[in-house]
């Protein structure tokens, strides 16, 4: 069994996210998801204040393939699996009964149910299918195409360079200390950079006033 440190995690830098939605479009296109299907990667914009003291912070989110995977724990049919090999959290839709427990348990609202009422979510660009569970190709995209680690689609198309993905030990090396510490104290779900001092987001009304899925529980 691979150690946690070899498990793939996401990294997000809100300072570099420019709210362009390229990540969402890229995910949709790669997985052939129609425009009206739920987004597996979602960009939300968090607006607050009164003109001209306004903040509008964009946040890009998907399933974080959490180390502790709360969704997996509540699934009554064991349809959700955290893969031992690389930590990717998959859903076997043959077992899914659409009870939505995982949606309640997930701190990021990642699971969606638009696909025939069954759970579907980001599969870290595993080969196939909405959940890429069961008989999915076990080779993740990042291990296909020869030697080099190929990034998940949303990562390689992120215009701002705000998202990274990779084995925890590698990604954490590129993160700031603050982000790494928070990751460790937060059950190892996602590595998120704190807002930089001096950006307008902090300047006027203060980013801590803005509730995003990443600081909702802080």
């Amino acid at each position, binding site marked *: 069994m691979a150690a946690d440190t070899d498990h793939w995690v996401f990294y997000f830098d809100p300072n570099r996210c420019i709210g362009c939605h390229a990540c969402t479009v890229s995910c949709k296109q790669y997985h*052939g998801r129609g425009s009206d299907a739920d987004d597996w990667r979602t960009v939300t914009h968090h607006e607050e204040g009164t003109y001209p003291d306004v903040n509008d912070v964009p946040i890009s989110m998907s399933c974080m393939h959490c180390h502790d995977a709360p969704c997996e724990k509540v699934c009554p049919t064991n349809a959700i699996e955290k893969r031992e090999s690389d930590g990717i959290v998959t859903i076997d839709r043959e077992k899914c009964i659409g009870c939505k427990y995982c949606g309640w348990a997930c701190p990021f609202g990642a699971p969606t149910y638009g696909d025939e009422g069954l759970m579907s979510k980001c599969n870290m660009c595993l*080969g196939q299918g909405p959940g890429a569970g069961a008989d999915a190709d076990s080779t993740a995209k990042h291990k296909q195409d020869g030697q080099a680690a190929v990034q998940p689609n949303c990562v390689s198309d992120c215009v701002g360079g705000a998202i990274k993905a990779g084995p925890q030990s590698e990604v954490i090396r590129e993160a700031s200390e603050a982000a790494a510490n928070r990751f460790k104290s937060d059950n190892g779900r996602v590595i998120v950079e704190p807002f930089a001092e001096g950006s307008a987001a902090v*300047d006027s009304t203060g980013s801590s006033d803005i509730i995003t899925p990443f600081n909702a529980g802080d």
Partner: protein
Amino acid sequence: MSKGLRDRASLTRRTLLKAGGAAAGAAALGGCLSSSEDGEDQVSGEVLTAFGNCWMCSHNCGQKAYVREDSSGKKTVVNLTGVDGHPRGSAGEGTEGTLCPKGLGQLDKTHDPKRIQEPHIRKNGELQKVEWEEAFQYTAERLATFKEENGSETFLDATSWAETSIFSTVWRELYGTPERISRGIHVCAGPTFVSGGMMGVGSNNRVPDYQNSEYIIAWGRNQLNSFAGQFEAKGTLEAIEKNGATLVTIDPQHTITAEKSDKWLPIKPRTDGALALAMANVIIEEDRYDEDFVENYTHGFDAYAEAAADMPPERAADITGLDAEDIRKVARGFAEAAPQAGISVWTGTAQVGNGWKATQNITALNGLVGNIDRPGGLRLWKYASTASFGEVCEQDYTNRAEFKEPAINKYDEYSDYPVRHITGIAHNLVPEMVENGHINGIVVHHDDPLKDGNADAWVEALDAMDLVLSIDAYWNGVSRNADIVLPEATQLEKDTLGTGNWSAYPKHTWVTGSKAAVDPQWNTKPDFDILVGIADAMAEETGNDDWTVFEQWDTHEDFIDDELSAIDLTLEDIDSGEVNYELVDEFEYESWEGDDHYTFNFDLDQVPPFAQAAEEADMDTAPEWIPPGTYGDELSEDYPLEFYDVRSVFFSHASNQPQERLRDQFAKRNELADEDYRGNYLHINPEDADKRGISSGDMVTVESETGSGELMAVVSERARPGFVTAEYGFGETSATPDGEGMNTMTLHHKQMDPITGQVDRHIAVEVTSSGGD
């Protein structure tokens, strides 16, 4: 089959059926889905890679296309991503290349069944499908008749940017019309481009050397969310991270660039000229300017200093609604960082009646602090010098437009329009010229002039024309009303070549190119083949050998290779390696140093056509402050709100509005995805909305003195009180088939910058709730 497989198969089928265009992506799902029993999901096949370079907004970001070839040899684009290190799509060497959402939309566009699939000609009032041969022959007949009846000089060339340079050859030199409107100076940013040229920094005065900058002013620009080459956003982020650069945004609206800025100046619309002069006032008063540069390389400083002296920050504060201390702070910061200080400026300060002076005053700041062609400042960008058409053409032919004067210069009817001295024609005046019989026909390529100003009059004008020729990929206001419709292949279906200038490589000229990644879809043709088809038919129709000029090239690739011969490259060279660009030559900074002839003009008194135009427009040749309303709309009791139309990161010039995935994200960005509506949105501040009983998601009517339209409201604190905006390119005449949303230019009449004729998109309006849900 197992339930798991059935799930995936049905998803694939559903997606195929639903979006059509999404079929491409559905194939990406597949890999080995060919085992499905009914055989409907045969998406197996080899995945090949190919290159492209994106022309969605014409700025050539490199594309890597993943193409699946099925057993019948049919190729489908299944994924699209960027090219690492690409001058336009990445932040430079060793950095990742990406595609912005508009650029990613190219995948859906390639296989979109809503595209025009066949050539059409109008017979008995109806557009009917015909074969290409008949379409070409008919085009030639109509062009010949048009010339006989109206004169070719009354045919308007409205061909937009193209992946080939032969457009101007066909219409100007061979057919013989001197009349041309295009994007660029006519409908994008006339004042920016033209003033830059006259002042001595060229039309690339809009793009600073981001990566090396320590102080970046995004002036009326949202470069983190309105990409013109993604290196702009990436370069700005890099300057902040690596140089600790200060980012200042000057914009009435709160944008993502304002969000990321150290300082946002929420300026009152149309007062940029006053702010720029006040900054000059501070810089001159406090002796913070580059005396050496001003002394040795500029002209007209005294007149400039005089205008600046009239605009102390306190006066500008009154005009702009900003704080005088903030103005001082930004002026000092900019001057201190200079020459590593750049101003990014484009359409925001240009699409205004007083845009000429705004841009002249802003551009003057560069000369003042001497950031001209210095690292981190304003770069005098250079192109790779490929061979021109004239150089590669082995045939002599007569340039038939050469001595023809454009109607606006020729006839007295237009003597009240100063623009006639500068740009030869103005977009807004075309309807009037049609009425006067000076324009009688039009060819439009990949554009929709009906959304670029004076919309209602343009619609009538199009109707009144004797010949409307449309070369396009989508049914829009022009193609639906044309006499001849020639369906154009889209970018991944054709060979492309881009020759660069500004980019993530500030010291290199470069080229980028790609061969077609897939065959032209349906019965469409690349624009090059369309033009050659027309030329060949014209040769036959007229018996004039000039029209055989393209026979020397068998294919577009041959033509491109000839163009590239000047720098010793072929399209194959560029397209076949790991990346699809080449850095060609290196060029240094400070190209003006030691050049006694280099002059940066603060005052344009020595540019005769401008001096003449300025005199007629009652304007000075030097920088000065011209208040809003002098040339454009004034707000009134009946029309108390100022309207301006803006761009969205999801769409480029209305050419990808039909993409459902993008329109859905657009609705999500506005938090109105639950509504069925997929048009543009009126952004309005709660203060203005409350007064009118408007909430987010309500349909509202926007009315100006000359027109009106209906669209959905987004009530947001990001909108400035008294200032409403909407994204352009929707509604009537657009390529969005269900017509939701509003053509913002139905509000517009003839307001323009008098010098360049640039459409003034600031319009006095009133907004009312349309009632209902």
